[in-house]
């Protein structure tokens, strides 16, 4: 602990009283820069999850600036605002950032279902895309009702379907009479998969039991007593976030629940979720929709260009962890949407409307992932005017005590059943809000 750190600590502690803090990636040429606003959280109870995501997002953009001069020579201007995973502050940050860049914002990614809900009307009114990557409203996958909201590469409903498919395979194909428990964050986020799991329970014949946990989720002893000593389910699923995840893993271990029958959604499958439990967390599983680790040329470029020069946003050890790579994926999807739009509108800073066109024509094939230096990082993604999710594949990963390793192949959610559910729910929303459906055939 040096004196410098002590002084910085004192100053930073004083600054914590200020609700919003900001960092930025400076563009090399601000007059010809595409603006990327960042709604991140580096403070508050969810900071351990938010910081690595924010680092991955910012590092990828900075790497593109340094390696390629931005996107096709259009440099990237990134400004960040700390929402603390708080809806009010999320809206405040949105309003503060939306006119703070040299161009219109390319897209928003608030990393919070609650903030996403709050921003849907604003992003729609301001005509800027919002990418809620693996969170937010599942029915926003219907681009006819939610023209500015994107859910790629997967929604919670798709995640629930993939999890049930995985369990079905583990059980030899038959879920009749099986007991499945869902432990969930008692919020809009945690309640998202319930309808899908209930529908699948009717179809597959398993018994679903629900266990809400009051946020932030510090207290779960009673929940786990009920699960492990009363219900004794065959499988337990978790929709948790932040401290709820690590507490659940530890309470489950404390009560002797078998870890290899406990599976979390992708927001319940990061290193901070399992490390506090030590060896007790070994065997715990979670869904994921991208790869982990640093064995990708693009991530090596981040290490070489930024961390070797001591210019990385976080600690070198954090590069390649789940939340870090998720930040990289979020940045990569957005920059690819911009790149796609540039091919149509020209290599210049784009408007939100033009970037939306880029999202709706985004097609990242396996070959394109390889060209991006991210071969095998995620599955092929193709979006359209109607389909704002585009794929939805995920796989199960398992904690081996030191790192996550794949425990299944890619699982393709049953979109023939999910799509009508998205459309039905979106149609209901459209009716409530008086929204007229887009005619996508006219926008081809």
């Amino acid at each position: 602990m040096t004196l410098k750190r002590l002084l910085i600590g004192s100053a930073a502690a004083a600054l914590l009283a200020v609700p919003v803090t900001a960092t930025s990636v400076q563009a090399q040429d601000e007059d010809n820069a595409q603006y990327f606003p960042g709604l991140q959280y580096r403070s508050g109870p969810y900071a351990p999850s938010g910081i690595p995501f924010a680092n991955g997002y910012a590092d990828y953009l900075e790497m593109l600036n340094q390696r390629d001069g931005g996107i096709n020579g259009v440099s990237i201007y990134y400004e960040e605002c700390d929402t603390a995973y708080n809806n009010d502050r999320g809206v405040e940050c949105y309003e503060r950032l939306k006119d703070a860049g040299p161009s219109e914002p390319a897209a928003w990614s608030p990393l919070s279902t609650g903030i996403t809900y709050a921003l849907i009307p604003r992003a729609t009114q301001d005509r800027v895309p919002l990418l809620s990557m693996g969170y937010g409203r599942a029915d926003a996958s219907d681009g006819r009702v939610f023209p500015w909201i994107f859910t790629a590469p997967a929604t919670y409903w798709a995640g629930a379907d993939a999890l049930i498919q995985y369990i079905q395979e583990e059980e030899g194909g038959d879920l009749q009479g099986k007991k499945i428990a869902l432990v969930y964050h008692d919020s809009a986020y945690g309640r998202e998969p319930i309808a899908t799991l209930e529908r699948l329970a009717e179809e597959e014949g398993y018994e679903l039991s629900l266990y809400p946990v009051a946020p932030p989720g510090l207290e779960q002893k009673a929940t786990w007593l009920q699960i492990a000593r009363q219900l004794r389910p065959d499988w337990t699923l978790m929709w948790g976030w932040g401290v709820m995840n690590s507490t659940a893993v530890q309470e489950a271990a404390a009560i002797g629940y078998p870890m290899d029958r406990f599976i979390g959604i992708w927001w319940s499958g990061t290193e901070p979720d399992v490390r506090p439990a030590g060896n007790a967390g070994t065997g715990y599983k979670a869904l994921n929709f991208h790869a982990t680790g640093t064995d990708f040329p693009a991530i090596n470029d981040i290490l070489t260009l930024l961390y070797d020069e001591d210019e990385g946003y976080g600690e070198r050890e954090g590069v390649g962890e789940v939340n870090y790579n998720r930040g990289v994926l979020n940045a990569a999807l957005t920059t690819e949407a911009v790149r796609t739009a540039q091919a149509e509108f020209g290599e210049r800073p784009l408007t939100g409307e033009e970037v939306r066109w880029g999202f709706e024509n985004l097609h990242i094939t396996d070959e394109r992932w390889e060209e991006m230096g991210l071969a095998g990082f995620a599955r092929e993604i193709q979006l359209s005017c109607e389909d704002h999710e585009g794929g939805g594949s995920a796989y199960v990963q398992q904690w081996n005590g030191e790192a996550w390793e794949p425990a299944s192949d890619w699982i393709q959610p049953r979109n023939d059943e999910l799509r009508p559910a998205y459309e039905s729910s979106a149609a209901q929303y459209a009716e409530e809000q008086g929204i007229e459906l887009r005619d996508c055939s006219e926008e081809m």
Partner: protein
Amino acid sequence: MPMRILPWLIIPPAAIIGLGLLLQGISAIDSQLYFTWGYFLEVLIAGTLQGVMYSLVALGFVLIFKASSIFNFAQGSMVLFAALTMVGLMGWGLHWTLAFLATAGVMVLLAMAIERAVLRPLVNQPHIILFMATIGIFYFLDGFGQTLWGSDVKQLDIGIPRTPIFIFEETFEGGILVNQFDVIAALVGGALVAILAIFFQKTRIGRALRAVADDHQAALSVGIPLKTIWAIVWSVAGIVALVTGVMWGSKMGVQFTLALIALKALPVLILGGLTSIPGAIVGGLIIGAGEQIAEVFLSTYIGSAIQDWFAYVLAMLFLLIRPQGLFGEKIIERV
């Protein structure tokens, strides 16, 4: 004295048996409610052990309130700061015992700094001013600790076993599950209370602390140095925060959310009284057991995730009977 203890020997077992019989009766009428005596005792024991953890948090509040009538809003961030410092020192290669002692030293220095920089300039100010100063300390420590040691979730492993054990397997089908960590945490909590009781009752400083707690002016008039006493009591509260941080940090990892466990102490303080160490202990046990039983057995009827607010409801029910809390001092003001 035996007559004072007698109700405590009779009432709790009677209440537990009565509650068990009531739940058994309801389960006989309504099959939705799952009840066996083994399960009931398992929930009760788990809740009681959890309650000791709440008591640990509440103790820090009680110590400072007793000596200075300040409700220390910063107690939760002291817990976080202590745990972060200890994990940070262990990260430098120190054995946990040395890291614990070094952190205790840091907490004493912190207490002296708080007394010098915050409390001394505010002597004779209304209590609400001192309370607001502790809110400032909360935010400062919260940010300062995380800036020094980082915001990552950190594992704190001091070798406490976490494996579940089963007791009374012959009496109850499947036995009663108890986690070793919870038992050890309860023993640590009990030991801490015993040490504090000896400190307050048997030492000169302890007697001076009690004198200050009873009447600041009278204590000053007989030569007890108020500033020194405040520094000592904040130091003791800091060490209690360290023990609390170690136990909670070992349980759920050291992270920002540790600061929020102070919220779990509030119903304990309402119930036990702000000025009583035994009150913090008994209050913690009642809140811990009560909320777990409510979550497990009442959730069938009023929904799950109720334990947080149920703790406050339980505390308020007690307040209807004893407004000063179970062990709090009854304040009589003549007007």
